[in-house]
Structure formats: structure tokens, C-alpha cells
């Protein structure tokens, strides 16, 4: 390795075989380049999908009543189940050790929404203050509905960012403006942002106001909760499933629903979905590893082929060197030394170029399901090492064979 004479001999050889060196280097560099780009996009897709799934709080659990489909305790099927305030209050109290936040919700239907002379077609929903965290909505301006608003049944509204850009584009800020819901003026106190436009087309008002002002009585349409975060993913899933089952059992009892009539009382846990999606991203990750490994194998085969051709091409030279007194090991060492040197230089060149490209272009990519493609430097680095090692091994066999070949035979190799 530190034999200066051999380095000189190798540089001589490289300098005088520019094309061969260039082609070997090019194929190694492009192999690494493609692999890194591929791995980068694999990561980008993972990031993108993760982003798509980040809409609601990951530990959220949603309760939707439906219509019974089974006869139970003398009650006919086809009964519409209606949740009421009491259900929410009681279940919140019952499960207060497992619940982090909770909010009931009511959809205000059959109302007209006006802003000045404009009629708006956005849905109005009555929610509690915790709903912001359950929906994972972030506040752009002002604040969300708070507990005070709930208690005092304040006539305040929080709008989505999409409504702001669509309707309130003539004023500096929608805060302080009034929208009329069925003729009742509501003061806008905040603008929230969601991942998707569709979820920004809502006007939230305090649930107490919604019930009192729009003939809601004590009815609610659904309930949602978040559970406290758990470090371990599997534990979190188990916790969510436990809570889900307990909640359903309780509500089924209260509303006299058959225990196996899941359609009448649907409880949906984001965690459970997340498990499915984690499985999906794991599969995607697996797929990209598979593709990556295939690419590495292709790279290894490519490098091996090149090494074999290079050695084949040099059979005569090897014969000459042997006739002049080169020891077999000195020939093997010379070939490997050169090949490791060329593969290493070109491998790292490919690595640097591809990482630079990902670094420059990556953050600017705006395609669905692809976000900030990037690659773990360690992974890329070890890939280069694997290729160098493979090239060495692949070069070793023909080099060894060439060193063993009878000189006279190799010299006759015209």
C-alpha cells in the first residue's frame, strides 16, 4: 500500500490507459450515482406518504353512531342511534385516565351563512376547545374556541385558511369580521390551517352555541378523543384498541345495541390505521431496499465484468511481467491496487455528485407522495465500500488466474 514504486507504476499505467480507466471509472460512478438517487427517492416517497398521513393527531379515536342492523332486547333493527351530551360527559368521566383530550361535535344543518351580501356554502360545526388538537389544526391568526366560549355559549367562529383566502381577500384580516349564521352574527376570532384544503372549508363555533342557537338540544353527532402519546408504537396501538373496545361496549350498553352490531356504533382509531400505514411504508422501505440491493448486485456484476475484461486484456502484459521476473503476488497486488484505486476514486465521485444533486434538487421537488428525497450518508458510504470490496473480490479471481497462467501460453495469446 505504501510502496512508492508501485504507486508510480500504477499511476503510469493509469495515465497511459486513460480510456480504459475512464470507462471503468464511469461505470462504477454511474452505478453509485443511480443507486444513491434511487435510495434518495425511496426515502422521498416515505417522507411524502408520512406527510399525507399526518393530518389528524396520530392517537385520535373517533366515535360515529349509525343505524342498528340487528334486533336486540326487543328493539327493532333500523333504529338510528343518537348521541347526546350525557354520553360524552359520562364517557369522558369514565375514561378520564386514558383520555388526553376529547370533544363532541355537532353538524349545524339547514342554516344559511352570509358575509355581508355574500352567501357562503361552508359547513358549520359545533365543537369544543380540544377539537383543535384532535384535528391537528394549527392557528394562523387569532385563537381557537376556548373553554370560556363553551361555557358562555359565545357567538364566535373560527374559519379555515381556505375560507380566508376565498372570502376575506378584501380585508387585511378576517379577525373581528362578522359572519351571519341564520341571521345571527358570529365574530371571527381565528383562522386555522390544515393539511388539506377540504378540511379548511369549515366554520367552527362553540358546541354549546350550536346546540342552543340552532335547535340542537342536547344532541351531538360524534365524539372524538386523543389518547396520551406512548413511546412504544405497539403499546400505543394496544392502548388505542383497548380504549376503542371499552368505549364501544359502554356506548352499546347505553343505547341498547347488540354487542356485535358494529355498524350502529362505529369507533375508529387512527392508531390502528397508522399500523396499517406503517406496514405500508415498511413495505415501501423493503421494496426500495430490494431495488437498491438489486442495483448493488447489478453494480457488482458490472464492476466484476469490467475487472475480468481488464485482466483478460492484460493477460499478455501479465505474461511478459512474469517472464521478466514478477512474482505472482506482485501481479495480483498490482492489478488489485489499481482497481481499488480506480473504483474508490470513481465510486466517491459518483457518491459526491449524486448527493450534491439530491441536496440541490431534493428540497425543490413538489410532487405528490414525494417529499425531500435524501439519502443516509452512512448507507451511501457503505454501498461504495461494498462495491469496492466486490470489485476487489471480482478482480481477484481473474488476477489470480492470470498470475497462475503459464507464461508461454499467455504470451501466445494474440
Amino acid at each position, binding site marked *: 500500500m505504501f510502496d512508492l514504486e508501485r504507486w508510480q507504476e500504477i499511476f503510469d499505467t493509469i495515465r497511459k490507459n486513460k480510456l480504459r480507466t475512464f470507462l471503468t471509472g464511469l461505470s462504477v460512478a454511474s452505478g453509485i450515482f443511480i443507486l444513491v438517487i434511487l435510495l434518495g427517492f425511496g426515502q422521498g416517497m416515505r417522507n411524502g406518504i408520512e406527510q399525507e398521513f399526518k393530518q389528524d393527531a396520530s392517537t385520535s379515536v373517533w366515535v360515529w353512531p349509525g343505524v342498528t342492523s340487528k334486533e336486540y332486547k326487543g328493539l327493532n333493527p333500523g333504529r338510528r342511534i343518537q348521541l347526546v351530551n350525557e354520553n360524552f360527559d359520562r364517557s369522558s368521566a369514565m375514561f378520564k385516565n386514558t383520555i388526553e383530550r376529547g370533544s363532541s361535535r355537532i353538524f349545524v344543518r339547514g342554516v344559511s351563512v352570509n358575509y355581508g351580501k355574500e352567501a357562503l356554502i361552508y359547513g358549520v360545526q359545533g365543537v369544543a376547545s380540544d377539537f383543535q388538537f384532535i384535528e391537528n389544526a394549527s392557528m394562523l391568526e387569532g385563537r381557537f374556541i376556548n373553554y370560556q366560549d363553551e361555557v358562555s355559549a359565545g357567538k364566535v367562529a373560527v374559519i379555515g385558511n381556505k375560507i380566508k383566502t376565498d372570502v376575506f381577500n378584501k380585508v387585511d384580516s378576517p379577525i373581528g369580521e362578522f359572519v351571519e349564521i341564520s341571521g345571527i352574527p358570529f365574530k371571527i376570532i381565528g383562522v386555522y390551517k390544515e393539511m388539506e384544503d377540504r378540511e379548511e372549508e369549515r366554520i367552527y363555533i362553540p358546541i354549546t352555541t350550536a346546540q342552543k342557537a340552532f335547535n340542537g338540544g342536547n344532541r351531538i353527532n360524534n365524539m372524538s378523543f386523543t389518547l396520551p402519546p406512548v413511546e412504544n408504537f405497539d403499546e400505543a396501538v394496544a392502548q388505542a384498541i383497548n380504549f376503542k373496545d371499552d368505549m364501544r361496549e359502554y356506548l352499546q350498553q347505553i343505547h341498547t345495541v347488540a354487542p356485535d352490531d358494529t355498524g350502529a356504533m362505529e369507533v375508529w382509531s387512527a392508531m390502528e390505521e397508522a399500523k396499517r400505514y406503517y406496514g405500508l411504508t415498511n413495505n415501501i422501505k423493503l421494496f426500495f431496499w430490494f431495488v437498491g440491493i438489486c442495483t448493488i448486485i447489478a453494480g457488482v456484476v458490472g464492476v466484476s465484468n469490467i475487472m475480468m475484461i481488464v485482466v483478460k486484456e492484460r493477460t499478455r502484459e501479465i505474461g511478459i511481467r*512474469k517472464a521478466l*521476473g514478477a*512474482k505472482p503476488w506482485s501481479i495480483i497486488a498490482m492489478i488489485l491496487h489499481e482497481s481499488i484505486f480506480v473504483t474508490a476514486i470513481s465510486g466517491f465521485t459518483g457518491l459526491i455528485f449524486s448527493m450534491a444533486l439530491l441536496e440541490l434538487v431534493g428540497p425543490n421537488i413538489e410532487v405528490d407522495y414525494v417529499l425531500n428525497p435524501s439519502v443516509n450518508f452512512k448507507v451511501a458510504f457503505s454501498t461504495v465500500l461494498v462495491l469496492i470490496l466486490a470489485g476487489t473480490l471480482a478482480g481477484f479471481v481473474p488476477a489470480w488466474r492470470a498470475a497462475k497462467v503459464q507464461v508461454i501460453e499467455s504470451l501466445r495469446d494474440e
Partner: protein
Amino acid sequence: MIEIKDLHKSYKMGSNSLHVLKGINFKVEEGELVAIMGSSGSGKSTLLNILGMLDGADSGEYTLDNVPIKNLSETKAAQYRNKFLGFIFQSFNLINYKSALENVALPLYYQKVPRKERQEKAMKYLDRVGLKPWAAHLPSELSGGQKQRVAIARAMAAEPKVLLADEPTGALDSKTSYEVMDLIQKINDDGNTILVVTHEEDIAHMCKRIVHLKDGVIVEDKKIEQVRAEQYV
């Protein structure tokens, strides 16, 4: 210098065994210029391979400069080749991407001679074969005769005990052949031991002794009156 006793060599060809050398006895003194003649298949190349330690014999003794050559490892053989032998080939076998000078310097590289000294020495031998002005040229830029002279310079550079020439004029026209033979004769005049394998009568007669090989045995071994190549040049 070279002593061979009852040398046998056979090659396996599938299930058959081809007996190529059938008991060669042969002695070469220092300073001799020996032509080994024979038609193709007579075993002369095999003999040269064994003499050059490029192949091992099945049985028999081979002593080179009082060193018994037997059961050599590849590494040992390479060492001996480098120290004892210089090769000259029919097809020159220069490394095509190295200049004439670098080709001549190559055996010295394997003798671990430092770079500078290597080049000085190589230049000296190139000068001896009259190619000093061509030192920086690649083999592809040289004529056949020049290439063979570079090859001779390379064989000489390691200062070997014995020069082995395998059909050194085989690829050259007769005028160039005589030039090369003239060079070989002059080197021999300086006291070097040289073995020339050839099938050309006139080339053989420019040596001092002719050994005739036929079907793996020596059929004739005679000293001759040397024809100087100089007169034809």
C-alpha cells in the same frame, strides 16, 4: 552453466498422455551460443519452457549456474527468472503502453532497483542496441527490427546468466534478421551465454553449436564454424 540430465516431460490431453521430451541430456558452458533446431512438435519450445522455468519437468535434473532447479514455487521461480534469465520472443512482447526505455527498465523494477538508477541503466542498454534516440517512443512507433532490439536490451538489462531466445528472427525479414543476429553475436562475444531456438538453417549457422531435436530426443549435437552476420548487414 546449464546442465540437463535425462529430462522427461509429457502433457495430458484428456485421457491420452503426450510424451514430448523423452530423456534429454544436454550441457551448455558459459559463453556458448547454442542453436536449438527442430521442426514444430519436436519439443524445442517445451525444452525452452523448462529451461526458462516457465514449466516444470516430470523427471530429470536441471542445474542452472550450479543451482538445482527443482520443485520451485512460483515465487522462487520468478526470483530465479529475474536473476538468471533474459527472454527474447518471436513476437517481441513489449508492453505496448510503455516507451522503449520503460520496457527496458521493467525487469529492473522487479529487481527493486530505484527508479533513477533503473532509467540510467536502461538507457545504457538501449544505447548498446543503438536505440538511444528512440528511448521515448512507444513500441507501435518502432519497426520490427527496432522492437526486437528493444526486447534484447530488456533481456540484457537484468544482466542475466543466460539469454533465452525463442525464434528471435521469426517475425522479421532476412535483412533485419541478420541485424538482430549480429547484435546477438556481439552480445555473445562479450561472454554472455545464449540459447536460440530456431527452425531457420542460416540463423542456426550463425551460432557456435547446433542441437537438433526430433520427436523429443536430441538426434544431433555439433559444434560448427560460426557464420558472422556482420557480412550480410
